[in-house]
């Protein structure tokens, strides 16, 4: 089998396993390149259907292009869209550095949605190659009371047997893209012709490599106006993907603290 087919097959397997074992699922849809691939893979797994709601945790600070994308493809793809609001930054842990504190609004918004809809499983499109603590994740990652990640004592996971049993009052994060890289995502997006937000492609010598909130995400210098050019650029670069995400770089442990508390 070819590499992208292998990746696709495992992701489909994970979707189907979660759908069979877990009641009350929802999928996070951040409108970024990864979560669009994730929606696409779900449709492949379920033969054109997405048999659970798709959830956008809206900080209210996304780019206009992202909102336009959401309206169009929620309709075209036949998605059941749930919108979650985030509390104002003043309500968030003030010991966090500023950008991380801003990002933590999303954690609070997600937790509220999990509670409101009594969700047992949430699909999140994180990848191991994005960030070093995500590199230590499981496909089926149990979360304790309050959504906390017990990262120092994760259960074993092997032979594609996942932890689908969990205590009442806790839930699972399910990561169908964990084994994909940024380049895999773009090559697959190209192969499958998956729509993407135009901000990823260069305009006036700049493009976004990773999309988050307007105020804490920065464009990179780039001439890559097409998907082919983006792939060529990434094949040559040594700059990490999330270099433009302020929250990752404020303190050594900023991201770990965010994730331990339930960030994606």
């Amino acid at each position, binding site marked *: *089998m*070819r*590499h*992208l*087919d*292998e990746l*696709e*097959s495992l992701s*489909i*397997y994970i979707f*189907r*396993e979660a*759908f*069979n074992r877990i009641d009350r699922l929802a999928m996070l849809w951040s409108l970024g390149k990864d979560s669009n691939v994730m929606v*696409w893979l779900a*449709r*492949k*797994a*379920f*033969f*054109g*259907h997405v*048999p659970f709601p798709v959830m956008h945790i809206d900080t209210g600070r996304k780019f206009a292009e992202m909102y336009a994308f959401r309206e169009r493809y929620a309709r075209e793809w036949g998605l059941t869209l749930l919108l979650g609001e985030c509390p104002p930054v003043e309500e968030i842990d003030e010991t966090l550095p500023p950008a991380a504190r801003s990002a933590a609004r999303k954690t609070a918004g997600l937790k509220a949605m999990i509670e409101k809809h009594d969700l047992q499983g949430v699909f999140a499109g994180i990848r*191991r*190659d994005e960030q*070093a*603590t995500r*590199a*230590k994740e*499981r496909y089926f990652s*149990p979360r304790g009371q309050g959504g906390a990640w017990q*990262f*120092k004592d*994760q*259960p*074993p*996971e*092997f*032979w594609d*047997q996942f*932890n689908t*049993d*969990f*205590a009442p009052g806790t839930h699972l994060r399910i990561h169908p893209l964990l*084994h994909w*890289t940024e380049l895999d995502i773009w*090559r697959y997006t*190209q*192969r*499958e012709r998956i729509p993407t937000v135009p901000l990823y492609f260069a305009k006036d010598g700049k493009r976004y490599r990773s999309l988050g909130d307007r105020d804490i995400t920065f464009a990179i210098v780039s001439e890559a106006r097409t998907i*082919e050019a983006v*792939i060529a650029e990434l094949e040559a670069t*040594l*700059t*990490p993907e999330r*270099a433009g995400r302020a929250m990752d770089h404020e303190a*050594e*442990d900023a991201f*770990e603290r965010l994730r331990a508390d339930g960030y994606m």
Partner: protein
Amino acid sequence: MQPTERAVLRLVVVGHVDHGKSTLIGRLFHDLQLLPEGKLEAIRAMCERRGMPFEWAFLMDALQAERDQGITIDTAQTWLRAKDRDYVVIDAPGHREFLKNMVTGAASAEAALLLIDAQEGVRDQTRRHGYLLKLLGIEQVLVLVNKLDAIGYRHERVAAIEAEFRGYAASIGLPLAGFLPISAREGDNIASRSAQTLWYEGPTLVEALAKLRPMARAVDLPLRLPIQDVYKFDERRIFAGRIESGILRVGDTLVFSPSNKSARVASIEAWACDVPPVEGRAGQSVGLTFAEPIFVERGEVASHEAEPPVETDVFRARLFWLGRNPLRRGGRYKLKLNHQAVPVSVQAIERVIDTTDLSDQASEQVERNAVAEVVLRADSMLALDPHGRLTRTGRFVLVDGYDIAGGGIISMQGYADQRHLMVRRATNLTRVEHEVSLAARELRNGHRGGVLWLTGLSASGKSTLAVAVERRLFNLSYHAYVLDGDNIRGGLCADLGFSPEERAENIRRVGEVAALMSRAGTLVLTAFISPYRSDRDRARKAAGERFHEVYVKADLATCEARDPKGLYKRARAGQIRDFTGVSAPYEPPERPELTIDTGSLTIEQSVQRIVDHVQRHFAEGAAFAGG
């Protein structure tokens, strides 16, 4: 334009704690000039903040606790771009405490790098990791003797370590792809040849990596498609699953195990696919529709009719235990095997293996991080394969409480495939009703019909007691008849040998005959070793409530001392294979209706107890409930 796809190999780095795993990964990134921008400076800053010398391990050890304690807690993965292909590099913790995380990392790898510190040599975790690599099915292992700078690059030291570890690897059957002397810290023999090891003529690590082969998908092996789910989103009823081995095509007839239903593949469904596929291959997640309406649930395994999986409710396994609480004999767990999820009990712990010296011992439990050979009994029939035949349908995990607590690989040695015992080949059967009722027969006989099923080791006294009881019952005007092993094998079962499957068939026939005779009103006494619980349970099912199991109990030493036919002696000399109690298992009854301890009772006492039992349960007017 079609995207260019690069090949990817999944590589795990294992070994004893502090033998240099994380340093090696850092060094590889550095020498291949693949460190992300700013990473080197970031690591330097982290080290300065902690007042320690530069530490490559911080590249992978992302958790604060890992950096503060200088130890890898959980497995992590990173991507490495070499000239001809990419590598997923999986860092596995070396500390014994975190073996579950090592297994999590290593289980998905296609090849392993096993590091040995040249100063410390082969240590506990070196061996344990080697043993687990073998259990996990990793077929290519490169051994790296690291920290050569610390031993002055001495050849003799490396040669001694190599000899010691090669001996260990050979004794557990672990295939080694090479033995390289390196220094991860100094960069010797990593990307370029070292001037310090002129005595070494083999490849550098980068060259050796390029020679590792990707794992081949099992397309040439028998088809196995475990059913993951059945969907009815629209007018199609789609059976979904991943093909674990083999190839299937539209038009193929598939048989499902263990239900033994079959159906013909009408289509392979796919979304966003211009031409519908006509073939599915190992590794693909597919969806099928069938030409006939068929009711099959998650867990069943589809195969071709010619090469189906084994059906059994009992099997042997070699397992590693990662649970917080020990695995106990008699303990109940949830078995997950592909998509089958069934309660099992631990029938026997045959030996607990010490991975350091490969010695073994009997034990009532298996502690965390230990390896053992066990016999597991499931509450219902399973479809599986011996691991030696098909890897992916020959392994399982056990769940204790909420967590996966262990994994194992399956052996059917000494146990029968129960498939042919289950299948009823004829389908157009109509039962004929008798005009004489069982009650009428029993009224005329003056007693009830039934089966007294004597089970026990060879020389425990089954035949002796059966014929003596038959005589006594005859004198008491019972219609009693003995079915004995050697007599039956002369006729009804003359076509059967002594393999586990043939033994099972032998017992199946005896069970059916005994059941028929009991319905004719006869009290049947059977005298067969019948060592397997599954077989006796099947005989019980055939005869229903008239079946009474009589455990003729005598320990192995007693039976061996009696040995009237000289069979034990021959078995011990290796002249009889699969001899119960010596080289094949005996599974004692769990709740027999009667136990006769011939080790402590005389023959006359034993006969009397059985006759009393018959009078109590089978005489006219006796209470019928077994007990």
